[in-house]
């Protein structure tokens, strides 16, 4: 949570990022210090606000303090900086250079994060308000065109026109499948029945992504406004927001926003004095990845275990309680108000031929700048990873980028110039999924990555249908064997056979896409599998049964960094003396391999050393 300190007379506001990252670095202390310093100023009031978690990719540089409207960003602020910030910057308007961000390339000090490459190359629609407004204040949202789209729709558009606009915009669902939102709405509008439902899917189960969370936490009203517009278009009178269990702050902010929307007449009976009535209820998820699947999600709302059902009849005909239902992802909803207010054309001007608008990615892993990035569809992976992300950490070599989470795949360096949209990723054997982008370097083992996702799914599949449940179990056993050096070459073919049946016969998309992490790594990194199987060697130094580490005496400078890092006390060595690793003590965690600045720690082959 961010904390805002407002000085009403000159309207200066201090935002202290209190997201997970900044809090871990002591943001609360900074906030308290600023607050007590400002006690002398009775005209100052304190309000909480949220910013995208991991927002600037600067969580590392946190705690972050922003001053608006002057647009100043301070990094790595400590509690003892509070006096200086208030006295110098707030009251006298002087920048404190030492707290500014220093561009690693140009070495320039930048006054605001908005001036960095990380920010400048983005194009914000869904994230337009994140970190700029106090999500707990409906007035902040109203100041930034909030509920203007709703007003426009209710006063000037009939429901079909709303659908037509969404269709013309070419908006495709951001929850993974990329189904055209307008067509979905149309099907629901056409479906017979008085009672219809709207659902916002905020389950966000991808284990490496957090964009929906930041939207729900940081700009809850845009989701609500989107849903009201959707309800108006299809003729629904009740909506649900299904929020992932762990997202406490999202629940809190959405709850507040729903309340405020009610009291302002945007929700409830006869919205903005029209004939249209609509209400939203919050549902906390139970903690199950499969509940992101729409039929499982509905089962969960109905009070059952989250098992999907066959979708030969779409939810737009028979959804929640058997009634026509539109379900869309958080980010999809967040785009709606912009489309309605500024028109389909403006929206469709951004993006590629078949994927319009922008997409939010959560760029993480072995990359310099991590965080949420929103870019036009069609931006290449290279631009995202190198220009916005600043390249691979520690200048190591890029190996792959994983997109789409457990349903997606690993894309190799040869495809870095791939323009990212729904179709290009599918063609490459991956998926847009929710928008996770995980950068991997040569220290990441692709077999182990495949195993990681399959293991994740082994616990997250609902377990109802045979191909998914038993297929995952078989894949997991085979992959574990390979990582342990007990794989056989014929296993590769066997895995491909099992994967094919999973894709064709599984009941829901979890099972149908579960093979992607395996198939994509088999497709692009088959060599690595073969190294594990034939040579009992893990080229990344990750699979412990296949790895040993030793120190190259030529390269070792005796800096003792690895000695300090080793939690097993397996490294012996004095300052400026060559170090050695005691194999029997070594737990093969690879810390020394990662920290050594001189590449002195080398990979050995396990069986060679044992002989």
């Amino acid at each position, binding site marked *: 949570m961010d904390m805002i300190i407002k000085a009403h007379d000159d309207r200066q506001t201090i935002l202290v990022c209190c997201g997970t990252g900044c809090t871990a670095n002591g943001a609360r202390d900074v906030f308290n210090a600023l607050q007590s310093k400002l006690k002398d100023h009775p005209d100052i009031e304190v309000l909480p606000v949220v910013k995208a978690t991991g927002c600037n990719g600067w969580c590392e540089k946190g705690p972050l303090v922003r001053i608006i409207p002057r647009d100043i960003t301070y990094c790595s602020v400590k509690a003892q900086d509070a006096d200086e910030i208030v006295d110098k910057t707030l009251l006298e308007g002087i920048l404190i250079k030492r707290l500014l961000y220093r561009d690693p390339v140009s070495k320039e000090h930048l006054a605001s994060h908005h001036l960095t490459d990380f920010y400048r190359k983005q194009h914000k629609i869904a994230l337009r308000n994140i970190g700029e407004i106090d999500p707990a204040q409906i007035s902040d949202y109203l100041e930034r065109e909030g509920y203007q789209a709703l007003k426009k729709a209710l006063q000037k558009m009939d429901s079909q026109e709303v659908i037509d606009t969404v269709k013309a915009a070419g908006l495709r669902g951001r929850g993974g499948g990329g189904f055209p939102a307008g067509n979905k709405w149309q099907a629901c509008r056409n479906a017979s029945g008085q009672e219809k439902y709207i659902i916002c899917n905020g389950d966000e189960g991808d284990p490496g992504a957090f964009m929906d969370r930041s939207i729900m936490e940081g700009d809850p009203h845009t989701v609500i406004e989107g849903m009201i517009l959707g309800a108006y278009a299809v003729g629904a009178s009740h909506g649900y927001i299904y929020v992932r269990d762990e997202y406490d702050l999202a629940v809190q902010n959405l709850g507040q926003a729903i309340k405020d929307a009610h009291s302002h007449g945007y929700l409830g009976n006869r919205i903005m004095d029209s004939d249209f009535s609509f209400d939203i209820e919050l549902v906390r998820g139970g903690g199950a990845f499969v509940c992101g699947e729409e039929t499982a999600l509905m089962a969960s709302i109905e009070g059952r275990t989250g098992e999907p059902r066959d979708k030969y009849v779409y939810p737009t005909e028979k959804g929640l309680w058997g009634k026509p239902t539109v379900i869309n992802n958080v980010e999809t909803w967040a785009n709606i108000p912009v489309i309605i207010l500024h028109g389909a054309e403006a929206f469709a001007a951004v993006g590629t031929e078949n994927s319009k608008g922008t997409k939010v990615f959560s760029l993480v892993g072995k990359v310099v700048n991590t965080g949420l990035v929103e870019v036009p569809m069609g931006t290449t992976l290279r631009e995202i990873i190198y220009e916005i992300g600043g390249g691979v950490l520690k200048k190591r070599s890029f190996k792959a980028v994983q997109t789409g989470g457990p349903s997606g795949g690993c894309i190799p360096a040869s495809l870095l110039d791939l323009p990212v949209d729904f179709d290009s990723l599918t063609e490459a054997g991956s998926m847009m999924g929710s928008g996770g982008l995980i950068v991997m370097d040569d220290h990441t083992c692709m077999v182990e990555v495949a195993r990681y996702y399959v293991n994740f799914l082994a616990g997250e599949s*609902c377990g*109802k249908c*045979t191909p998914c*449940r038993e*297929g*995952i179990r*078989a894949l997991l056993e085979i992959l574990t064997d390979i990582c342990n050096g007990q794989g056989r070459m014929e296993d590769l073919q066997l895995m491909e056979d099992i994967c094919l049946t999973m894709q064709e016969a599984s009941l829901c998309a979890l099972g149908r896409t579960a093979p992607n992490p395996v198939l994509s790594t088999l497709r692009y990194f088959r060599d690595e599998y073969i190294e594990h199987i034939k040579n009992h060697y893990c080229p990344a130094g990750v699979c412990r049964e296949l790895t040993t580490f030793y120190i190259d005496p030529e390269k070792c400078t005796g800096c003792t960094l690895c000695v300090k890092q080793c939690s097993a006390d397996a490294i012996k060595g004095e300052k400026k003396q060559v170090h050695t690793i005691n194999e029997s003590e070594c737990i093969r965690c690879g810390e020394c391999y990662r920290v050594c600045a001189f590449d002195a720690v080398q990979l050995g082959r396990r069986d060679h050393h044992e002989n």
Partner: protein
Amino acid sequence: MKIKLNGKEREAMPGESILELCKRENVPIPTFCYHQAFGGQGACRMCMVEVREEGQKEARLAAACTYLLNREAEVITESDRIQRIRRTIVMLLKRRAAGDPILKELADAYAAPDLEAVVTEPENCILCGLCIHACEEMGKSAIWSMFRGIDKRIATPYDEASDDCIGCAACARICPTHAISMEEKDSKRIIWNKSFELVACRRCGKEYATREEIEYLKERSDYGQENLCESCRKKTLAITVKNYI
């Protein structure tokens, strides 16, 4: 409504499943989780067929037991693709129920290769879910499918004797792979970690039900009042009817 079933034109009732149509037309489709009393669950995926509805370009794979026919369509129940899917499913299920004759037979029929059996799970359960439905039908729901993913299994709460269980053994009887262990001796039946007293038929002396089941049935209807086993009950009923006529 016209359906082209394996090339032959057939008449289907709107809303009926492909599987029901096939049953009526004597087109064999292998199933595990379907039962005529409860319909299809779409869980085992053995019944996959290819369907192309009018207006669709390509045929798609679908579970025959849950696909309801509402438009004219073309259905194919045997193809290389379908064969391959069934082979893999049998291969995967056989690891759970290695000793079961039905799966052995199917494995031979589909030429499914052997995978090493899962040692941790010798219980033969293929998670078809029929027992849950049978128990639910009895109005008891003493068992359900617990946990999820690869840990999913059928159990009573806490794996303990359940207050709801009446020992009727409907679950054990419906199980295609005889995976539910039940022991009967000394006028006792032990099932789902609970021991029940067996009651003998007043007429023929056969132990035919547990005390709890009889009590429960009495509560629900007048059935069971006479303490007769199924076949003796029918016989006495026939005599009564004859006398009446």
